[in-house]
């Protein structure tokens, strides 16, 4: 038997975007509804601080490569706490293990990486600790609102943001220049550019869209201003894939791109796809800010050909951006030393030294305002991108993220059946709206069966 379907980067990656400047204001809208985190008892906060100086041993499940280096820095600073870094699998593999271990009553780690899209599921079933009870709500201002919105769920704080993936448009400068195309600022311009590329060579496309990647479409809907999934209270869920205005925007743009065969319905991260990326078959990759590593590592021969621009907009006057991917770090209730686990999770993701290390040594796009605002970060020219200061574009992309997006409390399942429904229409060049409705129906059926009160529209 084999391969668990580990979904690709989109879901797994993360990077953080936090933004900086503008939001410093921050009072208002951290999304997700968690603005009213209850203040932790002072004793709990103190316990977390004390824990750093007491002997403890923690197990940390994560699949981020290179994070051992950041953890080593923690150990150098707090030698009493020993942290075992374990890569127990990626995404759904790890969640299944985690949930089974929690059910079994033993074997779960103290601290675990959980992607934003999966966090509500763990939070709702109380499989992760509400960090607000341990004083984590105080960290709110250190993070980009969009990132914080993903961990602030139902009045609690269930993870510390580690990385995010603000969307950006990575494009082949050489192809755009050859065809005299400007990077599209709106989706209307994007469609025009797609036509020019197709006209130049019918085998080429402006971009591909993956029929198996729910995360990618979630992000495009988010970026169109949509909020099709909403949870309130413990068990009220609403799904509006048929009526949400953002979904409709997405359908009108991508429906015509697909029906006119201007984009290629090709699964990502495959041999065919990478070769297409390397050969110029695709001129654009719209994805999270974590993408540069993948490009640099997998198609090194395209060095100097790539550039980064902000996402095309539906309304250029009111730019909106979205996240694609990203993870938080959560604490598991089974832990025998919750204060130490909380202290570690906080340090790892908010201490300036740690955050810098996560970016430089583990390749994660930063999530804290401190680093995103740091000129050394923003203004560093990237050699692979022909000297472009890409972090300026990506940092601004993170500022523009709309913070009120929510995932379902069973998004892992919903995403898994995406290919059965919406994927069919993407591949068939067909009826996106109808397929989204089918997706909604299956989501609703599942949710109802799981005991939620569903409202659909």
């Amino acid at each position, binding site marked *: 038997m084999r391969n668990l379907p580990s979904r690709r980067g989109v879901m797994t990656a993360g990077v953080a975007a936090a933004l900086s400047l503008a939001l410093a204001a921050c009072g208002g809208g951290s999304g997700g509804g968690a603005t009213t985190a209850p203040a932790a008892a002072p004793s709990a906060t103190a316990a977390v601080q004390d824990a750093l100086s007491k002997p403890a041993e923690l197990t940390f499940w994560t699949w981020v490569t290179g994070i051992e280096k950041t953890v080593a820095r923690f150990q150098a600073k707090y030698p009493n706490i020993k942290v075992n870094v374990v890569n127990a699998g990626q995404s759904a593999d790890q969640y299944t293990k985690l949930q089974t271990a929690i059910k079994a009553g033993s074997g779960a780690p103290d601290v675990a990486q959980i992607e934003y899209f999966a966090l509500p599921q763990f939070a709702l079933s109380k499989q992760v600790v509400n960090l607000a009870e341990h004083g984590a709500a105080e960290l709110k201002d250190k993070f980009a609102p969009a990132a914080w919105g993903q961990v602030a769920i139902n009045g609690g704080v269930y993870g510390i943001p580690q990385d995010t993936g603000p969307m950006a448009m990575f494009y082949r400068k050489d192809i755009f220049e050859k065809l005299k195309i400007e990077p599209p600022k709106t989706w209307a311009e994007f469609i025009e550019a797609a036509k020019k590329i197709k006209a130049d060579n019918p085998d080429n496309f402006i971009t591909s869209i993956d029929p198996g990647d729910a995360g990618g479409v979630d992000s495009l809907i988010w970026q169109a201003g949509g909020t099709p999934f909403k949870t309130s209270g413990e068990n009220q869920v609403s799904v509006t894939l048929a009526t949400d205005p953002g979904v409709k925007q997405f359908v009108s743009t991508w429906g015509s791109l697909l029906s006119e065969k201007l984009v290629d319905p090709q*699964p990502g991260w495959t041999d065919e796809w990478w070769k297409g990326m390397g050969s110029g078959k695709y001129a654009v990759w719209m994805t999270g800010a974590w993408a540069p590593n993948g490009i640099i590592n997998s198609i090194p021969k395209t060095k100097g050909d790539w550039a980064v621009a902000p996402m095309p907009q539906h309304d250029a006057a009111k730019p909106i951006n979205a996240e694609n991917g990203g993870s938080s770090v959560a604490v598991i209730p089974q832990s025998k030393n919750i204060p130490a686990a909380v202290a570690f999770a906080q340090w790892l993701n908010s201490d300036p030294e740690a955050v810098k290390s996560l970016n430089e040594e583990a390749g994660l796009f930063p999530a804290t305002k401190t680093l995103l605002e740091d000129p050394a970060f923003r203004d560093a020219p990237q050699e692979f991108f022909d000297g472009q200061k890409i972090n300026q574009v990506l940092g601004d992309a993170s500022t523009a993220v709309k913070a009120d997006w929510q995932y379902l*409390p069973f998004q892992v*399942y919903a995403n898994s059946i995406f290919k059965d429904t919406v994927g069919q229409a993407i591949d068939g060049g067909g009826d996106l709206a109808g397929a989204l409705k089918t997706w909604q129906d299956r989501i609703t059926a599942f949710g109802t069966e799981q005991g939620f009160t569903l409202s659909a529209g």
Partner: protein
Amino acid sequence: MTAPATRAGLARPFLRLRVAGYAFFLPFFLVFLITVVAPLAYAIYLSFFQERMIGGTVFAGLGNYTRAIGDALFGAGLVRVALFLVAQVPIMLLIALLCALAIDSGRLRWPSLFRITIFMPYAVPAVVAALMWGYMYGDQFGLVGQIGDALGVTLPDLMSRSWMLGSIGNMVTWEYVGYNMIILYAALRAIPEELYEAAEMDGAGAVRIAWSIKLPALRPALLVATLFSVIGSFQLFNEPNILQKLAPSVITTSYTPNMYAYNLAFNGQQINYSAAVAVVLGLVTVVVAYVVQIITARREKTL
């Protein structure tokens, strides 16, 4: 069957043989109990419950089973693997049989080279199989696309809806031809030498020997290979799961019953329903395997 144990003198050797029989079977059976029966019993127990994210676990009686029987996704998957079984298994076993006979015939050059190379695909890990077939089937940069370019024609997309089952069948055949060949080859090696000598004295040629000596002798081994191919077909999982990454819209989460059970348990956390689906699938498999066995046994009698 077993003679009822009678008294002293006669009973003793019988008893000794029985005890020895049990004793020899026991080690296997213990491991089997721990690693197969126990989880299975647990899964069957779980299949009578329903666990919900909101509202906890409730006793569901046969609810999961009635649901599985009426589940259109499950049914479509069953039909698909049945189709696969009918087409792929005979082809694969026939090729395996011919290869085994050829290698055993003594008329082939470099028999051990063929034996190992045909078996080798079975040793390829699944991660690589995915990358490999992604290349082979690729209609742009892959082998299929390049052959098409060279011939100046557009070859069909082997990972499209209409071709997918055949493409999976090809992968399975590639992987398991050598495996089945070895089973049959080992059985051929067990044929007593006298039979050949007698046949040769009668002037029988190679084809004649294959038909009237080797094939009948291979029957039990062929039956085992068939039974396990039947089970393997109903449990088809690896190959479609590998190709799912390359053709997500064709290979849905319920493409085969086993994938369906897997996705229910792993992505949907519906362990209870997943267990019920697996048990129903197992029952269907047992029935089909039993029918195959009866058909073969009847044929044996008529010979």
